[in-house]
């Protein structure tokens, strides 16, 4: 067995989701046409993606808005059903997205407790790791303030610290590093290394090509729901940036 072991295997995955359309018309026309019901159509977001994710690897996922990056991550965690194809993996991945807060009214400390319990820690375990998590998030001075008073960078740090308090085997990061400062990125890099050294894999979705160059071993370029190129970060980023597509950055 010379090949590195696969942690996630995506085969010809197709994902569509429903979007509700709000017809641009007033109440009067709406009644006149006799259809006030919400209409929806299916958007084919991922159209036949095949890729493997290996142990000890950080894979970058780039592409213009609407290329299907976030949809693919959601499908990998089981949040969106596949229309066809398959996604198999060693364990359920943890997805870290850009949602704003956990419990806005509660302090950072209480949010750590709640998040830790949801992750499967016992209360005693959370208490024991509390200081470590607070330090990782760099929030020692502000930890007892309500989370809604935090800046977006502080929120991102706290969520990242909580979500990775138990090092996941497969970590999917959807634009979650973008809001942080340099200090946070250094800490994030440490955590990503923790995942990789524990035989795990990381998928990083971002529009920031510096993040891609810095963190990733391999890059997948998605375009209109399909894989356009796979390879070395430097090469793929160069051709991606040189691509003529109007919204490719």
């Amino acid at each position: 067995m010379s090949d590195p072991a696969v942690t996630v295997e995506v085969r010809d995955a197709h994902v569509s989701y429903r979007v509700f359309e709000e017809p641009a018309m007033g109440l009067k026309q709406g009644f006149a046409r006799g259809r006030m019901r919400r209409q929806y159509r299916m958007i084919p977001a991922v159209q036949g993606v095949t890729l493997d994710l290996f142990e000890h690897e950080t894979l970058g996922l780039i592409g213009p808005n609407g290329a299907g990056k976030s949809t693919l991550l959601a499908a990998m965690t089981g949040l969106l059903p596949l229309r066809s194809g398959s996604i198999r993996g060693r364990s359920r991945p943890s997805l870290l997205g850009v949602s704003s807060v956990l419990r806005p009214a509660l302090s950072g400390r209480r949010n750590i407790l709640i998040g830790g319990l949801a992750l499967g820690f016992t209360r005693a375990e959370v208490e024991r790791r509390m200081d470590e998590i607070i330090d990782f998030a760099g929030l020692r001075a502000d930890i007892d303030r309500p989370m809604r008073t935090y800046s977006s960078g502080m929120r991102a740090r706290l969520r990242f610290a909580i979500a990775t308090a138990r090092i996941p085997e497969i970590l999917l990061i959807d634009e979650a590093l973008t809001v942080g400062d340099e200090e946070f990125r250094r800490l994030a890099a440490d955590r990503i290394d923790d995942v990789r050294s524990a035989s795990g894999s990381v998928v990083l979705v971002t529009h920031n090509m510096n993040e891609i160059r810095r963190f990733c071993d391999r890059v997948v370029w998605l375009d209109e729901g399909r894989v356009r190129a796979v390879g070395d970060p430097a090469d793929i980023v160069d051709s991606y940036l040189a691509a003529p597509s109007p919204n490719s950055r």
Partner: protein
Amino acid sequence: MTSVSTEAADGSGSSSSGDAVVRPLIDLTSRPTARTYLREAWRRREFAIVVPAQDLRAQNMDTTLGQLWHLVNPALLVGVYFLMFGVIIDTRRGVDNFLGFLIVGVVLFHLTQRVTLEASTSITQNMGLIRSIQFPRILLPAASVNGQTAAFVPALALAILAVLATGELPTLRWLVLPAVLVAQFAFNFGTALLVARIGTTMPDLRQILPHLFRLLFYGSGVIFSVDAFVQSAAWRRAFALNPLYDVITCARWCLLGEPVDLWVVAGLVMWCIVMPAIGFWVFHRSEQRLGA
């Protein structure tokens, strides 16, 4: 960061040695089986205890009476109903101890109402948590049920004291009350799962529920004795289909010695089995879409 725990604790440390057992890949797009799901939820049960405890503490922090509101609120309700229905419109017909009758009805009805309303927003209120961390979502409605039930315990204690004060003496039948309360808890839990699920796709539920409970309230004999007001045996049997009527009537039998029909007992047994089953089935079936 010297000591990090890994979810893949078994065998992950030796995987670099080359002869590690390759773990089989599991299908990530299908939902976990009910058994695996419940086991995961049970492992994290502390969440459903600690989180509501904190919420309760935070809830009435800015009011003068604070936590006492969990007692004062049902007491005021009993007072209002006693004035309206016991004194002004006299519905005391056919009841020996109307105040005790009212207290038991109001307190138990109130519990199910609070649990249901709270659970209906348990998913939508926790989107931040859902989008940041993977965990069995059943913990969220479970937290609502636990929190409201815990807040109800002092009200129940007060109700029992009040029933004693109205001149009732404890009998052997009081020993049956815990069984009735456990049945109500099971019913509440099932209902909580159902409304939590419906509330995610239909936020309008929050507006509809109070009216539904208003209707249920009059159909549960909280403020009048159904036996005394409804003559037709067929109609009385129809009341047995109302789970809250079953709970309240059985509890009154325990504490006040009010008569209870066999149909009512059968109704309660049915609801406390069927409702959790329906609730879990509906919730688990669409668990994966709850965060989308």
